[in-house]
């Protein structure tokens, strides 16, 4: 792999890892507020919103940390890509249903990021995860 390819790989890995580590930590810091954000999507039964809020931030944070540590990069990037796809599906239903809720992507209970904007941002994150996955594969081949 060329030097520029190597730099690009590390840039993508650190950006993706930092993004999800931050998102995971801020949400894990206020699980109840995040549960309310999840509940606003009106997709899950009452108690399941708490289950998602109590677990997903830790999955994000661990996967983000692994990317930053350059350890198990492909599984971590793959997992984050799949999770981003799930988030995009949920956001898509919000757009289709014409709901005006905060996406709950980063700071739970604070601010307001529309579903359409969050969906657009998730497209970028998905591409970043797939690029990280591909660049790591090329490094090892």
């Amino acid at each position, binding site marked *: 792999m060329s030097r520029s390819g190597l730099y690009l790989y590390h840039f993508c890995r650190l950006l993706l890892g930092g993004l999800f580590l931050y998102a995971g930590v801020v949400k*894990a810091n206020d699980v109840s507020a995040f549960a309310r954000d999840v509940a606003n999507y009106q997709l899950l039964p009452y108690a399941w919103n708490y289950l998602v809020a109590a677990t997903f931030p830790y999955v994000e944070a661990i996967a983000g940390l692994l990317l930053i540590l350059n350890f198990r990069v492909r599984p971590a990037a793959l997992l984050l890509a799949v999770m981003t796809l799930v988030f995009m599906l949920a956001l898509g239903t919000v757009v289709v249903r014409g709901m005006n809720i905060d996406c709950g992507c980063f700071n739970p209970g604070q601010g307001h990021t529309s579903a359409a904007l969050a969906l657009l941002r998730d497209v970028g994150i998905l591409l970043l995860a797939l690029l990280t996955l591909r660049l790591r594969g090329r490094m090892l081949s």
Partner: protein
Amino acid sequence: MKTITRRIWFEAGIIFALGVVVGLSINIQLVLDAFSGRLTLESSHGVESPSPSRMNDQALEPALFPIPVLLADIRELQRTGALLVDARTAESYDEGHLPGALSLPLGELDDRLGPFVNEFPKETTLIIYCSGFGCPDSFDVGVRLLEAGYGDVRVYEGGFPEWRDAGLPVIKEAP
């Protein structure tokens, strides 16, 4: 190649499972409370819920906070004359509310508290609800009703979403 791909998926699954285990071990009480319906105001409002000793003292001095109430208790409380109060907006109330509930939106409380107090005696048990999950309106309305002199004010924190998701009857007002 196929083996590598399978290994990557397997390891991704392990990372997911690890995150779930870590999250559950830290938040197990919250999750158990959510599934058993025991969630109190403490977890979502950051305020102290009445402790058992304080609840015992309620006959002597007024409670500072409304008492959390469970879904399972609502029918029985209604049977003994409790009044359900919907603290959401009038529009939300019209779209669907609990049977027997009266609309008393937080935003209209200044105008409607007087007539409400005139209509319902202070001995009435009141159960306030809104949109669940720490929606603050039911709590705020509950505090205002306590201040107005009502002695038994409860907050049903699960609110309309929990009631609806439990498959219980919902009343819609005609447009």
